[in-house]
C-alpha cells in the first residue's frame, strides 16, 4: 500500500471564550476513542465549518499534499510528532488577559495519511491543484477547506488533529510565532 498525505494548519487570532477555540476544543475532547467512518467524517465536517466561519481571523497557515509514498509517510510522522513532542506549544502560560496585552494566537492542525490512488486521494489531489502564486491566499485556504468533504475515511489510514493551546492562558504570542520553528507557517494574503 502506498500513501499520500494531506495536511493543513492555520494560526488564528485567539479570543479566549470565542467560538473558534471553544468549538475546536469541544470537538477534540468529545471525539470518540474508537470511531466509525461516519464519525470521523462528521468530526472534520464540524471542524472545517468552524474554520470557515473564522476565516477572517486567520493570520498564517500552510497545507501540504504529497503523493509520493516515502514523502507522505515521513511528512505525516512529522505532523504527528508536532503533537507528541508539543514542540509548538508554550512550555508556560503566556498570560490570561490578551485584551490588555499583545495579541494571542491559536493553531489548529489536521493531517491525513491517505491510501494512494484511492478515489479520496484523487479528489484531494484535484482539490489541491493550486497555481503556485496562489498557494497562500486566503481564498485558497477557503477553497481547500470547503472541499474536504471529499474525504472518505475508508481510504484514510491515519489522521491527527490538535489544537494549541488547550487553556486560555496559554495562547501563542507574536514572539512565539516569530520563532524559527514556526517559519513553515506562511502569512496568509
Amino acid at each position: 500500500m502506498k500513501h499520500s498525505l494531506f495536511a493543513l494548519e492555520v494560526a488564528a487570532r485567539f479570543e479566549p471564550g470565542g467560538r473558534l477555540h471553544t468549538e475546536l476544543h469541544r470537538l477534540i475532547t468529545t471525539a470518540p476513542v474508537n470511531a466509525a467512518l461516519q464519525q470521523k467524517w462528521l468530526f472534520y465536517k464540524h471542524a472545517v465549518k468552524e474554520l470557515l466561519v473564522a476565516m477572517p481571523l486567520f493570520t498564517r497557515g500552510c497545507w501540504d499534499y504529497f503523493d509520493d509514498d516515502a514523502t507522505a509517510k515521513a511528512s505525516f510522522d512529522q505532523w504527528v510528532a508536532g503533537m507528541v513532542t508539543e514542540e509548538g506549544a508554550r512550555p508556560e502560560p503566556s498570560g490570561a488577559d490578551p485584551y490588555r496585552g499583545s495579541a494571542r494566537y491559536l493553531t489548529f492542525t489536521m493531517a491525513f495519511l491517505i491510501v494512494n490512488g484511492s478515489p479520496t486521494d484523487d479528489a484531494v489531489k484535484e482539490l489541491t491543484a493550486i497555481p503556485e502564486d496562489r498557494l497562500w491566499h486566503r481564498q485558497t485556504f477557503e477553497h481547500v477547506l470547503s472541499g474536504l468533504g471529499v474525504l472518505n475515511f475508508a481510504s484514510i489510514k491515519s489522521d491527527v488533529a490538535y489544537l494549541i493551546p488547550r487553556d486560555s492562558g496559554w495562547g501563542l504570542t507574536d514572539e512565539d510565532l516569530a520563532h524559527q520553528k514556526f517559519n513553515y507557517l506562511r502569512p496568509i494574503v
Partner: protein
Amino acid sequence: MSSSPNDQPFERDRLVDKPGIIGARWWHAALADQDAQIARRAAIRNILIAGGVIAGFGAMLAMCAKVSTSSSSPEVSDARKTSLDMQKEYGWSFGAVDEPLVFDGVTTKPFEPAALHSLAADLAPVTRSLVPFFQATLFQSLEAIPPSLGKLDPTEIAGFKPLSVSMQPIFTNKMAAAYARGKSLASLFASVSELPGQTPATTKAALIVDLPGPEAVAFAAGASSVFEPVFLFDNWPHPRGVVHAQDTLSAAAYYQPLFAEARAERARTYTRLPMFVLDRGRIATYSDDATEFDNRYVAKLPPSAAGIRSLGGNHVLYVVPGSYDAGRELDDLNDELVLYSAGGIDVKSVSLDMFGPDTTDAGISTPPRKPNESDRLVEESGFIYYGGSRGSHHAFFVDYPWAKPARAATTRPGINPGKRFEPRARTTPYSSGNPSGTLATKARPANFSTVPVVIAVGTGIILGSRYSRSGSWNRSSGGFGG
C-alpha cells in the same frame, strides 16, 4: 449498544491533553494491518538511510516544510548500532516502547512470574566444561534495567515496562510433539545402559538441536534426563523482532520447573551428554528496517573438532524439524560442522519426523516386567518410536552406529536422509566455504543484527531508533519540501 471493531475501525492511539496543546491521532486498524502485511516501508528505509533528501518525484503541491528549520530541534545524523547493545542500554523494546509483544500459543497454565528471576540459573549447565558455551542472553532479558533509558528522547521512554511484565506462558501442539520426541531419543541413549559396562556417555555423542525456538526448548526438556542442555539463545525479544524470541523465552519459562529438577539431578549423578540448543529462526530473513527489528544472531558452537572432543564427543547428531531439513545444516553452522567432520567427528542428522507413534502396537498398554529408564522415557513420550514403530525403535544405533543396539530391531525405518548426512563446505553470507583449524571469526552479512539510530550531531547522544513511531527527530531530519 456495543459496536464491533468493523463498525468502528478507527482507534485512537495517541492523546495529548495539556494546557498548551490538546490533540489525538487515530489509526484505521484494518488498513494498518493490511499495510503491515505488504511491508512496503523498505522504500522509506532506503531513501532515508541514503541521506534523506526526498524531492523531484510525485506531486508536492504546497510544501510547508514544517519545522525543517527549527532551531529547537537538534541537528541529527543516522548511524547503525548493534541491536542487542541498544536493547541492553536503552530497553528491550527500543524504538517500539508502546507496541505489544505477540505470543504464539498462549496457554492458561498457571504462570509464576516470581520464578522468572531464576530462569537463567535454572537453565544453566552444571558441567564446568559446558558453562563457557552457555548463552544466558535471552534469559537475562526479563528483568534487565536499561542504564541509559533516561537519556533518550522523552517520547521514547513513556510507557516503558520491564520485559517480565509483558511475558505470557505459551504451550503449543508442536511443543508437545517436540517434547515427546526428545523423550523418545533420550530413551534410545538411555537403553545403552542395558549393555554391560555401558552408559549413554559410551556413545560419545553430542546433540545440536536446531528447531524453531519453542520446539527446541521443548525437545531439550524432553531429552534433559540424558542430555545436558546448553542453550545458545543470544538475543532479546522485541515487538518488531524478526526472531520471535519471546516465544522461545516463554517456552523456557513453561518448562523451567522441569529444567530446574533435571539440573539438580545432574548435579547429584553422572555427567550427561552435551546438547547444544538453537533457535532455528536466528538467521531469519530480514528485509525492512522500518517494520522489523533485526534481533538475529549466529550460533556460537565449539569452534573446532578438538573443542567437541574436549567435551567428550566423537559424534555429533544434528536434530532438525523434517527430513527435508536433514540434508543440509543452516548456513551459520556450515563452517563448524565442516570443521568437525574434517577433524574426524562423525556428523549425522536426524529429523523429528523420523519419530512417531506405532498405531499398530498392541503392546502399548502392556508395560515391561521390569521397566528401566529407557522404558520409562518411552512411556513418558506417549510411546513415540524411532522409525514410527516399536520394532524399528532400536534400529537407531544401526543407522547411527555409535553404540551397540541394546535390543533387537525387528523392522527398519523408512527413508532417513539424516543417517547419510555429511556437511559440505558452502560459501554463504554466514559461512566462509573454506574453514580450517579453529574458527576464529564468523561470517555475517553486512549490517547483520544492527538497528538504525538517530544521533544528535552536536553531542553524539543517541536520541533513539530511526524508526520509532514517536521520535521527534522525524520532524527535523527529512529536509524535504520547499
